[in-house]
Each structure stands twice: as C-alpha cells, then as structure tokens.
C-alpha cells in the first residue's frame, strides 16, 4: 500500500469537505473492496476519509411502504434487520448471501453500490425494486445511478447517504455463485408489485446491471416460470471470462430467472 493520510469525520458535511480539500481524497466505508485495491497498489489516494464515525448513515427505518437503509449499514445489519425481513425478505436474504461472514461484518450497502462491481448483488436489487439513491446533493433513480462497469453518477466528493427501497408485492433473488468469492456469475432479481414486474440481471452484463424487458412483459401477463420459456437473452453484450463464457451466462440468465419466479411463490 502507498502512504495516505487518514481522517474520521463525524458528519457528512465534514466528510465532504475533507475529500474536497484533499489532493486526492477517497471515502472509506467497510474497506472490503477499497483495501484490497490499495494493497495491490491499483490506487494511490492522498487521503482516506472514513465514514465509520458518521451516525446519520447508520439506520434502517420503515416509512409507509418503503424501507430507508443508511449507506453505512453493513451487509450483516441488512441481513439481520427485522424490518427488512418483514417488508423485503428478498433483500435481507441477498445481503446474507454476500461473500462470507467476515466480509458481511464490514462491507456496506453504500460501498457496494458506489463501487458498482458488475458482479455485485445489491445493484440488481436496486434496479428490480425501483430503489432511489439519496446523496448529500440529490436523489437519483437506480436507473440513473448505475452508469457502467464500476461507474456511477456520483460526482467528486458526493456521498451516498441512504437507499430507499419500495416494498414489493413479491420478490426473490437467485444467484449462480462463483464458488471461491461468492460473487454472482449470474444473479437475477425478480420483483412484482401489482401489475408491474421487473427483472434485473447482475454478473453478466458488459455494461453492468441491466433489466430484461421481454421477460418483464411476459411475466406481467402471466407470472409463472413457464411464461419465460423460449425467451432468450442475446450473449452479444455479455461478459466472457475464465469463470463463464457469454453463451453460458446467457443460458444461466434464463435458468436463474425461472428459479427466481418460482421462489416468489
């Protein structure tokens, strides 16, 4: 690791000014992505601004039909939240299946979506549930927040403060895991609220998380795994790597989507 200065401010406003006044400041949340990156010397920030001391980023609250989750809530907090288990059990289950227990005890919601790894789980939940992402500057729809591989709409010194998830009628997330890291080779989140159905895919897309309109249309007419028979996702824009070819990922999207619909019950 290269040298850096470390700061732990107590408020969002102080964290923003600490990053903005540093030569090359970066926020530190759970560190489960950032510290491995620094250890490999893939980044050289002048200052790490730790968000761990900011109480206002650490809460989960129910507001009518939505659940608001603070950015510094760890995967273990989300998995264990009684509110989320009651309102959006699919989201609690997703968080409880990220990485391993030690990663879940440190890694956070805000860090995961700010990083937007194409194989991360949360982006699929945000897109399928129609979540909105609140920062210190504005509120964005998930569609507008995730802009590409490891790319988001966040500007310099902009902090994700919370994510608001509308509770769906039914939802389920199923992933085909990389057996070593538990990252998604393909993960599909299906959510149904009234007549509206959303299908979001992570792990596969060349441009990160995406929705599958053909599947959504078929499921809106007939919410059953059978309705997905014959709907193929083209491998053209999917990733190929040592774990899976684009063709295999395209196949897995169909399988995971059918399983997710079945898991919705």
């Amino acid at each position: 690791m290269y040298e850096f200065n470390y700061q732990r401010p107590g408020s969002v406003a102080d964290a923003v000014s600490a990053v903005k006044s540093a030569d090359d400041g970066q926020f530190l949340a759970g560190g489960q992505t950032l510290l491995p990156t620094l250890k490999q010397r893939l980044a050289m920030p002048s200052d790490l601004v730790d968000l761990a001391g900011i109480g206002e980023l650490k809460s989960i609250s129910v507001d009518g039909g939505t659940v608001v989750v603070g950015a510094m809530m760890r995967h273990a907090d989300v998995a264990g939240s009684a509110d989320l288990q009651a309102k959006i059990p699919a989201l609690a289950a997703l968080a409880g299946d990220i990485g391993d227990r030690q990663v879940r005890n440190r890694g956070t919601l805000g860090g995961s979506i700010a990083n937007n790894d194409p194989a991360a789980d949360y982006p699929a939940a945000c897109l399928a549930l129609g979540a909105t992402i609140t920062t210190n500057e504005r509120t964005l729809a998930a569609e507008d927040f995730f802009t590409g591989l490891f790319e988001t709409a966040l500007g310099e010194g902009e902090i994700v403060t919370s994510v608001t998830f509308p509770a769906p009628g039914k939802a389920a997330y199923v992933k085909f895991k990389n057996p070593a890291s538990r990252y998604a080779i393909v993960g599909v989140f299906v959510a149904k609220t009234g007549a509206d159905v959303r299908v979001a895919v992570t792990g596969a897309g060349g441009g990160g998380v995406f929705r599958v309109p053909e599947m959504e249309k078929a499921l809106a007419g007939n919410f059953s795994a059978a309705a997905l028979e014959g709907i193929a996702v083209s491998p053209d824009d999917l990733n190929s790597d040592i774990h899976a070819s684009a063709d295999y990922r395209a196949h897995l999207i169909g399988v995971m989507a059918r399983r997710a619909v079945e898991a919705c019950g």
Partner: protein
Amino acid sequence: MSVTVSMTVNGKAVTGEVEPRTLLVQFLRDHLGLTGTHVGCDTSQCGACVVHIDGESVKSCTALAVQAEGTEVNTIEGLAKDGVLHPMQEAFRENHGLQCGFCTPGMVMSAIELVRGRPDISEKEIREGLEGNICRCTGYHNIVKSIKAGAAAMKG
C-alpha cells in the same frame, strides 16, 4: 507520518504508533508480537487472519489498525484462561480438527462467532458459515466435527 492508535487487545489497553496504512494484522503481529494471527493469502480470501472486533469476526488483513481505534480486539492468544483452553480450542484438539495448524487460529475465531447462541447448529450451517475460511490440509471434515462439539461444549 505516524499516528497514535489505542484499543483493547485481549483485555489489555494498548497504544501504538502506526502509519495510517498499517493493517490491523501487522499491528497485532509486528507491534504487539501476537503472531498467533496468521496471514495466508493477503487477498481477503483465506480467513487465517480472522480476529474479533467488538465480538464480531473480521479479516484483520482487510482492516486498518486505525479503523480499530477504541474497539475491543480479541485474538487466538486471548482465548485460553489460566492455562485452560477455550472449549472451542479443546474441541479442535479432541477431534483432530487440525493438521499443519496454519488455518486454525482463524477457524477457531470464526467458529466462536458462528456458534454463539446456537448450541445445536447443524453440519450444513457450519459448512456454510465457514465460507470465509480455507484449509489446505484437513478436507474440513474434522473441522466441522470440532465446531459441532465446541458449540455443544460452549453451552455448558
């Protein structure tokens, strides 16, 4: 540029001068001489470095010492009391839960958090709960057996 960190390690207050980039595992091993916590991979995968921060298992190769400021850290060295092994350590010994022993400190620390409040934890739950710990020797069978026995013993 060094900074001062203070935390409680195995029940004792400690203070040290570290660089902000010093990892918690380096602080424990190099500054405090607590070499029971191992570094197996350095890529956040193997779990040989697992310690507890405020009772929760954490990979100490993927945390900075400064992030542990003000916390209670427990390592494998802190488990035995007055020369008597912790029930989970004893269960590993009794059930041949180790061969070379390199993964063992992390396995034991992960296991203690995993079984807390779950004396009847199933074999399947133990195997799933060990996702973050890798062993190159045992094939896991006796580790799972040890943790099941340790869970039962910790109840009493």
